[in-house]
């Protein structure tokens, strides 16, 4: 079995192999295609089975019943993301874990009591962050939380909220007079409208969320408004981008694998595609992109785990993996020829998902802009 990282411990290797086997037996691509017709993207029973493997407990502190494999939760979480990318597996994995991480760190005890349900796969969480036309930076957030009667009134519109229509609770980022703040709301609260959106990714689900004067108590705040909330938002963005990159590194590696196989099996002019130097050199470049993408993901995960230089290393990963993963897939489409642009072939499932990951939470170009500031521009 092929490891994702080259430095997995025995426990991590077992965890990774279990994840891969679970996906291969429970959700082969044929099943992924069937699930495209499910309004919620995946059966709840399956999500609970995934939760039993620990996919929603890694980021939850041990004191709250969670726990990681290696003592570096973010590294273990990226292993799962890699495997989910390989399998183009749907499910509210990213938003649930990102929000659970914040609740475990900054939530009050009522909010933290939800984590038990999260770890059982019964409670789904989503993060309402980006707004129409926004650039995925905290400064674009225009939704307001106006102080009122000791609580707040929320007004605004959020878009591309992953699992927004499936979530039981939403983490909402909004602006208060004291700076950014985050609120945890049940999705059935008055004044909140969740409308499912269409997505290029046929597997995962996204929604628009509107707040028309949603009144909440101050106990809905997650952490304090201002610097504390801003730090949480930054962390959420970083974890989300890491998971996107791991997902894309996993799916790019898988696409490359089956395209290499295809190059051996497919003959033209009496010899396999794999014997043409013009194609071999393209495959060499793709292998390089794939391995370097995984290296970039591991570097970002390590930086987050160590709490050292994480903004830089996460942006490096998005800048590199975001572009190279989809370049690789487009090249694989080209090498497949006509079949590569049909609905029947699986290639587009990977490319769709990777393209969504590439764009949400900042494009590679956005992250290069951020890096230029880190080198002193």
């Amino acid at each position, binding site marked *: 079995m*092929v*490891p994702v990282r*080259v*430095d997995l411990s025995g426990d991590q290797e077992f965890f990774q192999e279990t994840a891969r086997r679970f996906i291969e037996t429970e959700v082969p691509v044929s099943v992924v295609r069937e699930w495209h017709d499910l309004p919620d993207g995946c059966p709840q029973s399956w999500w609970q089975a995934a939760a039993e493997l620990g996919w929603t407990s890694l980021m939850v502190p041990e004191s709250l019943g969670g726990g990681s494999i290696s003592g570096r939760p973010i590294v273990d979480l990226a292993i799962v993301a890699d495997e989910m990318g390989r399998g183009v597996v749907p499910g509210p994995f990213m938003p649930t874990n990102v929000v659970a991480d914040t609740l475990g760190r900054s939530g009050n005890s009522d909010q933290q009591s939800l984590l038990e349900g999260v770890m059982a796969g019964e409670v789904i969480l989503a993060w309402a962050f980006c707004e129409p036309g926004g650039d995925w930076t905290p400064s674009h957030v225009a939704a307001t939380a106006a102080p009122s009667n000791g609580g707040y009134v929320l007004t605004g519109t959020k878009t591309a909220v992953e699992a927004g229509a499936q979530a039981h609770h939403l983490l909402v980022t909004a602006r208060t007079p004291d700076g950014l703040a985050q609120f945890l709301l049940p999705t059935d609260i008055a004044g909140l409208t969740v409308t499912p959106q269409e997505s290029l990714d046929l597997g995962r689900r996204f929604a628009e969320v509107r707040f028309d004067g949603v009144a909440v108590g101050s106990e809905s705040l997650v952490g304090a408004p201002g610097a504390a909330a801003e730090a949480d938002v930054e962390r959420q963005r970083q974890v989300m981008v890491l998971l996107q990159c791991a997902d894309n590194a996993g799916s790019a590696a898988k696409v490359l694998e089956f395209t*290499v196989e295809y*190059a*051996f099996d497919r003959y033209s002019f009496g010899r*396999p595609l*794999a*014997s043409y*130097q013009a194609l*071999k*050199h393209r*495959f*060499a*470049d793709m*292998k*390089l992109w794939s*391995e*370097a993408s*995984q*290296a*970039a993901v*591991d*570097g970002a995960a390590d930086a987050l785990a160590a709490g050292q230089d994480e903004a*830089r*290393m996460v*942006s*490096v990963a998005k*800048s*590199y993996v975001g572009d190279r993963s989809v370049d690789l897939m487009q090249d694989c489409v080209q090498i497949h020829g006509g079949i590569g642009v049909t609905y029947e072939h699986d290639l587009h499932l990977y490319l769709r998902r990777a393209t969504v990951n590439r764009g949400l939470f900042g494009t590679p*170009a956005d*992250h*290069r*802009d*951020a*890096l*230029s*500031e*880190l*080198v*002193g*521009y």
Partner: protein
Amino acid sequence: MADFVYAETDPAELAEYREQVETWMNENMPRRDPVNPWHPTQDDDERSTRNRELQRRLSDGGYAAVCYPKEYGGQSLTIAHQRIIDDVSMDFDMPILFSVPTLSICGPTILECGTEEQKQRYIPAWIRGDELWVQFMSEPSGGSDMAGALTRADRDGDEFIINGSKIWSTFAQRSDYALMLARTNWEVPKHRGLTMFIVPIHHPGIEIHPIQMVDGTEEFCQEYFNDVIIPAENVVGEVDDGWTVASRLLFHERASVGNASPYTQGRHRSRSADGLNDLAAFARNYGGNVGRQRQRLGETETLSRVEVLLSDRVVKGIESGYFPAPAGSLVRLFHGLSRADRTTVAMELHGDRALVWNQGEDTGSYGVEYVQRQQTCIGGGTTEMARNIISERILGMPREPAADRDLPFNQVPRSG
């Protein structure tokens, strides 16, 4: 033959080693002047003398080429120890000239394929800084097709007589010995008629001509051999089996270029790779398209960081058996492409100042570096060869057909 063995290392022991190295470097090695670093294009004699002296200092302290076995003057330590020395040495002047090819390419080749006498005789001399080596591999007739060598070595009793020419040897005029591949049998296919020799460079019949490069430096040389007599004891490996030795040499060259070799020693920051803050400051002050400059800086930072991470992944992956040894070619390919890109960015960020500059300004060197940029995709094995290796030996794709594979070499068609 076995690939590198990477021994397990204890983190606490390594941390202690780092402290030792830092203390020793601070007390014994000259600190690198960040404003006016000692530049390798300075006068050849000074460069040679200085490198030998620095290598001697390292050796006296026990920090020279530490992965070599103790019996030959090394320390029998691990690659992790060597990398600690490399990290710490970034701020000091190091004998970089000894790192490649002497210690990291010629060295392990002799260590693996040489006789006991050769190992005893030569390895301690490199480590002490007494003898500098070069490679006589490429020929004017072709660089990538190394097994197609035309330089001949004809046996005469206990001696061989060499005639022909080699090219692209680095700094041969100030070096002492070379590893040279020459043809000893013309009646058999090309890979089966080669022999590897140890050649003293300043020797009757050898003429050395420096080659002026685009940037004006004369680091590379071409050599001409006219009835050069070499004793048979200088053969490395078996007569006519030089390709076995050359394959190991190529392996070590790839490892060295890919930063996966335990035998490289020291590392200097290259200007366009590490001076990103300076580049950013220049661009911001001088002017230009802000959006584009930001993108180019971000791209450069990305490539620099990913290159380090990839190199780390490949080293660990070869160690754990995840990658086959030829995976060093991944790092080689990345390095060539990213370095070329960074060189382009460095020029672009200097705007017209890299193209037309006032007398006394240094900005023009970025333009010159750009003109010479493909050097990093050519030297040390071209990026095309790296792509062949990745596709054939990592992905297992069919090898390129070779018209000369089973033909006696004297029947192989050749150019002009």
